[in-house]
């Protein structure tokens, strides 16, 4: 069953040199219990996509198109409407749990605040639920943890607390924006395990946003690769990672330290991702793409459907060869 259905989402931000589209004509779905990964470099629009679902776009930021969440249209929602949904049905965790938790408030205050607001439960009931939550995210000694402040925990533990907060009202959708980027690999592995368990035990839908393809490979069912605010490729994670069809996806995979045999040299994508407001015309990737032709410089890239479950936006589609499919 589809929980979230995004159609032709465009997010316009106000920059120093006028309005600019940070997200361009994006469409995707998330089923219940599914984990969708959104990958892309900084400035690719992945975070703005998440913030438009949360109703947290920056000042003068505007979303257009359609975001249908569990039967409700979120585009055009007033701040008051967002306050009803946010933290209750949709929750979000951020990269840095030190800044997303309040340093001066106890864990108990932070864990129970929105529970009492949304669910109208008593202080005592909220406390019982908070203990339960800390246990779910495997914080040792939840009783003591409730009285503590964020600074008394390590980065990994703080991220677990942030996840507990997000889960407090049993949201239908959890958005995790770079949830493990600030953590050590050993701690990251623990958070990945936890998110995987939660998805299974609570039938939670999750959007994981990160540039780390390894994390996405471990966790996600489907993957969407973004570049300059637009989707370039999407499909089942295993297929996208093992048989990428878009040159940008291929470039990201080639740039990984594990891939390719080029001695000590990694295979870098030439150039840099474009800045907001300076996205190239046509296929935005054409300036860095080794397969680009003159027709890539204008118009919109061709949408190619593959077996009804994958798609790429590429006019050239260079890997559409019998050999290319299984390179």
């Amino acid at each position, binding site marked *: 069953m589809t929980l979230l259905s995004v159609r032709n989402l465009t997010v316009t931000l106000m920059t120093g040199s006028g309005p600019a589209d940070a997200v361009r004509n994006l469409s995707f779905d998330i089923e219940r219990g599914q984990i969708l990964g959104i990958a892309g470099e900084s400035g690719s629009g992945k975070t703005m996509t998440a913030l438009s679902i949360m109703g947290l776009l920056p000042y003068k930021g505007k979303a257009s198109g359609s975001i249908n969440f569990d039967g409700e249209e979120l585009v055009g929602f007033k701040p008051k409407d967002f306050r009803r949904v946010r933290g209750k049905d949709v929750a979000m965790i951020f990269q840095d749990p030190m800044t997303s938790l309040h340093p001066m408030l106890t864990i108990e205050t932070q864990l129970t605040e929105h529970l009492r607001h949304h669910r109208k439960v008593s202080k005592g009931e909220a406390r019982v639920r908070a203990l339960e939550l800390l246990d779910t995210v495997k914080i040792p000694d939840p009783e003591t943890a409730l009285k503590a402040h964020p600074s008394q925990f390590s980065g990994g533990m703080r991220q677990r607390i942030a996840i507990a907060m997000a889960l407090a009202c049993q949201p239908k959708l959890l958005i995790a924006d770079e949830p493990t980027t600030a953590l050590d690999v050993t701690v990251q592995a*623990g958070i990945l395990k936890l998110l995987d368990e939660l998805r299974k035990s609570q039938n939670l839908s999750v959007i994981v946003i990160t540039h780390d393809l390894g994390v996405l490979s*471990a966790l996600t069912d489907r993957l969407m690769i973004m570049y300059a605010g637009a989707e370039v490729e999407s499909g089942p994670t295993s297929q996208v990672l093992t048989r990428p069809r878009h040159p940008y996806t291929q470039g990201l995979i080639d740039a990984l330290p594990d891939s390719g045999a080029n001695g000590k040299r990694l295979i870098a994508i030439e150039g840099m991702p474009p800045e907001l407001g300076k996205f190239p015309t046509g296929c935005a990737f054409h300036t860095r793409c080794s397969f680009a032709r003159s027709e890539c410089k204008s118009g919109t890239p061709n949408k190619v459907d593959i077996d009804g479950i994958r798609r790429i936006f590429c006019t050239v589609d260079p890997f559409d060869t019998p050999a290319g499919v299984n390179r």
Partner: protein
Amino acid sequence: MKPIVEVNNLSVEYTRGDQKVRAVAGVDLHVGAGEILGLVGESGCGKSTLGKAIVGILQGAEGEVNFDGQKVSKIGRGQRVAHFRNLQMIFQDPYGSLNPRRKIGDQIADGPRIDGVSKSEALEKAASLLERVGLPRNAVERYPHQFSGGQRQRIAIARALAISPKVIIADEPISALDTSSQAAVANLLVNLVEEFQMGLIFISHDLSIVRRISDRVAVMYLGKIVETGKTEEIWNSPSHPYTKALMSAIPHADGKAFIPLDLPGDVPNPAYPPSGCRFHPRCPLAQAECGSREPMHVSLSDGRKVSCILQEAGNAPKALTF
């Protein structure tokens, strides 16, 4: 190969209140010309402290660092002895390590200017260095905020190169960068090491990149080097459980939906290091003995050195499974 930087039994202490915290506790290291040494470990294990002590930003409490035949002393307020200018450091955050109010060219020219080079010559050198690291020559006239993170890290590298260093300590130089810049900056460092036959100590928590570019690896845990040896040997058969835990925690982008192994617990507070082997409280293979005595530092038959009770018999490394 004769090492250029040699670290002997180095310890570094911080004072916290009236307490002494030993962040680096008896480390031996060396790096030679044209060699890349990867230094890995979780945050809080003392990698950055060690890096700073090697270049002399921090003073060692015990032991010594030798650079090209002379003992490194702490950088003071005065001018540094010219000899040690050839020992340079690059930091993780290219936003914090460049002065936002000075032109790029002037910042790069500082090194040669102190060496007595004229201003115009130094700026000319800055421009050609910027070109060498893949930036336009006219960047000398611009300010740090006009560049992206990857470009700023290139600027920081150009600045380190300005006085033709023999050794560079790079502390997490690519961690803050985007995927495509990561690969490009890593390649740049590899090329520079080969071109100028520099030594490079590459400090990183990312084992997969260290594996790719390093000739040798040193694995650090709570102030001590627990395993060191040739990269491929360590990668193929880690002989210390901590090394193996670090490697097993890396998620791979192979589309197999495999959740990597986590290593429960955190790096302990260095003010109160665990007794015996410092890793024993988190070690999946710990034995009763591990808590009571420190493991010996043994050499294995392939030239690797490791501190683990399981490997004390020496000879060929014992395979670890967990």
